[in-house]
Each structure stands twice: as C-alpha cells, then as structure tokens.
C-alpha cells in the first residue's frame, strides 16, 4: 500500500464563467481521517471533490497531497482514486476486468492483473461474482466492485462522490458501516461527498459543512452538532431551533427544549403547536412562534402521555441557560 498522506487545500476556488462555485476554501484532512463534505446541492462540495480528483481544473489556489503539489497533475498521477456517483462501472466488462482496468492501462499482463483484481474482489467479498457484468449485479454489489476498482491503484486518498445515494435506506446504513471499517483497515484518508447529515455524523472524523461555495464549519461530528457555528449549520444539521434574541441568534437543540404551560414563569417563548409526529420513543412537536421559524421540540413519550398536546394548543417553550448556543453570522 502507498503511504497515507495528508490532503491540504489552500485557498482553492472554482469559477464557471461568472459564477463562483467554490470560493477560496482552506481545508486540511489528516492522513488517517474520514472526511465528509456535507451540504445542499449546488454548495460546491462535488466541485471541490472533483478538483481534488483532478477531473476539474482549479481556478485559483493549490491542492497538496503529502508533500506534493498536485494542482496541475492528471488524476492518475495524484495518488487519488475516485469512486463515482452511481459507480460508472464499464458495462461491457466483467467485474474482474472492471477492477483490473487500471492495471491494464499500465500494461500489466492479463494473468497477473486478473489475479490481483481477484484479491481486491475478495477484499469486498465479491469474488463469487467475478465473471458477471455490472448489469447483473444489485446496487450494493456494484458499489463493492466500484470500491475494489478504486482501491486497486493503491491510492493515498480515496474520493467518494455520494457513494450511498443510489442505495435503498436499509442497505445505506449497512454500507456506511462497511465504508468506515474499510477506511480504518486501509488507514488512508477518505473524502466523502454527501448531502445526508446523518451519514456525515455517523461516518466522519471531520465534517465539513459547505454552503454557497464556502466552508461554514469544519470539525468533528460532535463539535459540529453540539456547537454549530452559524445559522446555516444549525438548520442544515437539523435537531436545532434557531431563535432570535436581543443578544443575537442562538441555537437550542430540539431535545433540550421543554414544552410548558403558556403562563409558566419558565417560558421564554410563546408558541402554537403546528404538528405532532409520533416517533416511537418520543414525539416530535412542530411549533410556530413570531420571530422564529421551523421550531420543534422533542417530547418523551411518558411526558407526552401525561400532558398530551394537540395542534393549535398555545404553549410556552423553555430551556436552560446551559443549552443556549450563540451563533455567528455566515462567513
């Protein structure tokens, strides 16, 4: 295996004509880290990944892998490998030939490259399907083959473009566990683009939340969820209420908000119940209040049974001082 290497982006920008897709971002991914680029569509996360891969030219800035500046190198010379969205397996080649493709490009002879490809198919438990073509495989199986194809080049960094979005929810959860285990085992950094915050929180060592071509916050999942830096991060991650106060915008986690009587002394905000959703162990209560949108509170099932809430009820919302998290304006 090649040496795992740090990835560093230095003031990297991407312009498409007059539009700025990625705006001078700085990012450092440690050599053993799992990094998720998280954001809504059009936030620049895929452009960033494609620039790291070398499939998109960098307009300004530099990309460093280990000690090497790879900004102007072709993909195969960077030590990166990319797993494409919906996998881009070659439909005319069997699994083993798909995996062996990059070795064939390097002129490795047939017997040797197929033997090596079989090893990587074993790594992803796909060796029984070696002679099948991609159309005969399920989504999850195709993903494993794509993974083996990317890994056979012994990359220093693996880049994954929405690797789980083509799978059904059940398989998605299973595959993300496998991705995480594989990353630990290989000990190389993975950079994973996703728009699912649960995926990012579950997988990553480093969550990078992007919006409008900028990084809103980069940190561990815990940091990002506990201390969202901006209103965008708080709203995008979900589970947070953003409330305007005289001291500025604050975030309060939905599970730390308690629903009290409207007249109660503890109530900091008066609200009207807009929706009630049963979630098993708890109820998700949607609320409306002037000066704050999309409020919600998580009410435990025992508490809810004691004082049930119905749509249209006027209530008060309370939280502890310790649960207040001030937000800064967008970068």
């Amino acid at each position: 295996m090649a040496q795992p290497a740090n990835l560093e982006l230095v003031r990297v920008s991407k312009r498409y004509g007059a539009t700025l897709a990625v705006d001078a971002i700085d990012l450092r991914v440690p050599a053993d880290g799992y990094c998720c680029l998280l954001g809504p569509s059009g936030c620049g996360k895929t452009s960033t990944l494609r620039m790291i891969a070398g499939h998109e030219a960098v307009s300004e800035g530099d990309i460093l892998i280990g000690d090497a500046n790879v900004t102007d190198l072709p993909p195969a010379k960077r030590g990166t490998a990319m797993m494409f969205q919906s996998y881009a397996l070659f439909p005319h080649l069997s699994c083993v030939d798909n995996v062996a493709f990059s070795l064939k490009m390097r002129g490795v002879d047939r017997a040797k490259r197929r033997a090596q490809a079989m090893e990587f198919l074993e790594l992803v438990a796909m060796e029984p399907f070696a002679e099948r073509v991609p159309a005969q495989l399920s989504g999850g199986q195709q993903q494993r083959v794509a993974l083996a194809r990317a890994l056979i080049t012994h990359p220093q960094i693996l880049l994954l473009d929405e690797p789980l979005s083509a799978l059904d929810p059940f398989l998605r959860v299973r595959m993300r566990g496998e991705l995480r285990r594989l990353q630990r085992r290989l000990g190389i950094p993975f950079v994973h683009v996703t728009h699912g915050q649960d995926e990012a929180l579950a997988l990553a060592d480093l969550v990078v939340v992007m919006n409008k071509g900028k990084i809103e916050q980069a940190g561990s999942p815990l940091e990002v969820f506990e201390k969202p830096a901006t209103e965008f991060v708080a709203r995008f991650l979900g589970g947070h209420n953003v409330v305007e106060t005289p001291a500025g915008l604050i975030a309060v986690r939905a599970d730390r908000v308690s629903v009290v009587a409207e007249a109660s002394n503890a109530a900091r905000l008066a609200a009207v119940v807009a929706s009630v959703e049963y979630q098993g162990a708890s109820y998700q209560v949607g609320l409306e209040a002037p000066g704050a949108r999309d409020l919600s509170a998580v009410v435990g099932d025992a508490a809810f049974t004691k004082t049930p809430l119905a749509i249209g009820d006027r209530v008060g919302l309370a939280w502890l001082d310790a649960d207040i998290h001030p937000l800064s304006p967008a970068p």
Partner: protein
Amino acid sequence: MAAGRDLDSYGAPGWLQAAPFALVFAAFFVLPLVFVVIVSFWDYNDYQMLPTFTTRSYVESFDGCLTDLPNLCTMFKTYVSTAKFCFIVWALTLVIGFTVAYFLAFYVRSATAQMTLFLVCTIPFWTSNVIRMISWIPLLGRNGLVNQLLVGAHVVDAPVEWLLYSPFSVALAFVHLFTFFMVAPIFNSMMRIDRRLMEAAYDAGASGWQMLTNVIIPLCKPGLAIGSIFVVTIVMGDFITFDEMGGEQIASAGKVIETRLGALQFPPAAANAVILLGATMLIIAVLNRIVDIRKEL
C-alpha cells in the same frame, strides 16, 4: 414491456394494434420476396415466362463455376469484384464515419451545435443520388478541375486517366454518398455513452488512445455494426453508381440483375436477386456473430 407475454394474452386489441404494420410488411416485403423466389424457379423463352418448375436460371447463372475451377466463372468474378468494392468502401466509410461521429459527439460541447452540425451532414440528401454522383464529373473528367490543376501545377505532364470511369471514381462516389449512413448510428451510440465512464477511465490512468480502444469502441459496437450493415447492403445491391462512375465498364452483382431485367428475362433476374440476397445475408450473419445486435439495442 410485454416481458414474456405473447400477443395472444392481450386478446383482440393486441392483434388489432399489430395488424397495420404486419399488413404493410406482408404486402410490400414478404409477398414480393415470395414472388421473386417463385419466379426464380420458372422457365422462360425469348418472349415469355413459363410457369413450370426448373432450376435452369440457377444452373445458367453458375455456368462453369465448378468445372472451370481454379479459374473463376463470371458469377464468382462478379461477386469477388463487388465484395472487393464493398470491403474498400466499408473500411473507408467506417474510418471517416467514426472520426466525424467522434468529433460531433466528444469535441462539440454544446448540444445545439451538435444537432446543427449533424443536420448539416444531411444536407447532401436534399438532392438525388444521381445528381450527387454526376457532380463529380466536371471535377474528375479528363479536362476536369483536378486534371487542370495537376497539369497547371506541372505535377503531371498529361491528364490523369484513372480519375473518372474507374474503380477509383466508383469507390470515391460510394464513400461520398454513404459515409453518413455510418455517421448516424455511430453518433447515436456515442451519445449514449455515459460521460462518467470516460472520467472513470481517465481516473484509472487511460491515455486518449486507450480510452478509444478500451471504452469508446467497445461501447460503439452496435452503431458500428448497424452502420456496416447499411453500407454493405447498399453497395452489394447497387448498380447505378457502378454505371455512372464506372462508365458502364465495371461488373457488379446488382448490374447482373439489371441487365437481365433489361432483356426482360425475369426468371434469371429473380434467381440472381435470390443469390445476391443470400450473399448479403451471409455477410450480415458474420457481422452479427461479431456483435449481437439484438442484445446490444
């Protein structure tokens, strides 16, 4: 998709929906073909067809073909010559057609420009084949533009004779007329290639040439096969181009049929048509072995 259900299970509406095309197909393809086969086994004399079963037309067509071996009889010579043209024209249209389609599909970025250029390729079809052929004559003739230029530039002392009414001019006209029949299906195949596959190949370190041989050509196989079938069938059956551009000096399989028809000898014309059909289907069967077209569509 009917997925395993046959027409019967749809009842009357299914049959009704299939009927118009089936009738057209039966009336204008199956029936004439059956007549041709039947007539090819009839006898004839100087002024009429005699509806009695005989293999005379076939026997006469292949006259001396076995006894003269290893020398080729007229029939074999004609077919070898036609097949030679067929191969040359096929190879040239394939290379040119592929190049044009490649340019349109991968170099032209905007979809509007792509479609515009593709439609520009069809402009020659606004005039008839014959007119397009004849337009070569002022260019290639003994005192044509090309010869004037060559003599004027002292490249040659006397006008070049083989430019017109020669195998060269026949092949040239075929390539000119039929390259588009290669371009269209190959372009269609290329447009259906997922661009991410090319990125994946690039990511795996493929050079431009490796991309072509390992990804693009294999995925263009259906287009290549369909284009080849168009060109091969047209050239095999053609006689007008051979006449116009070859100065009526070059024999071809189609020309044999035309001559027999001109002499009102319908049974031998029909027999030759059946032989030509067999030969062409043989070539297509070989092509089909290389690419399973039904599977690839």
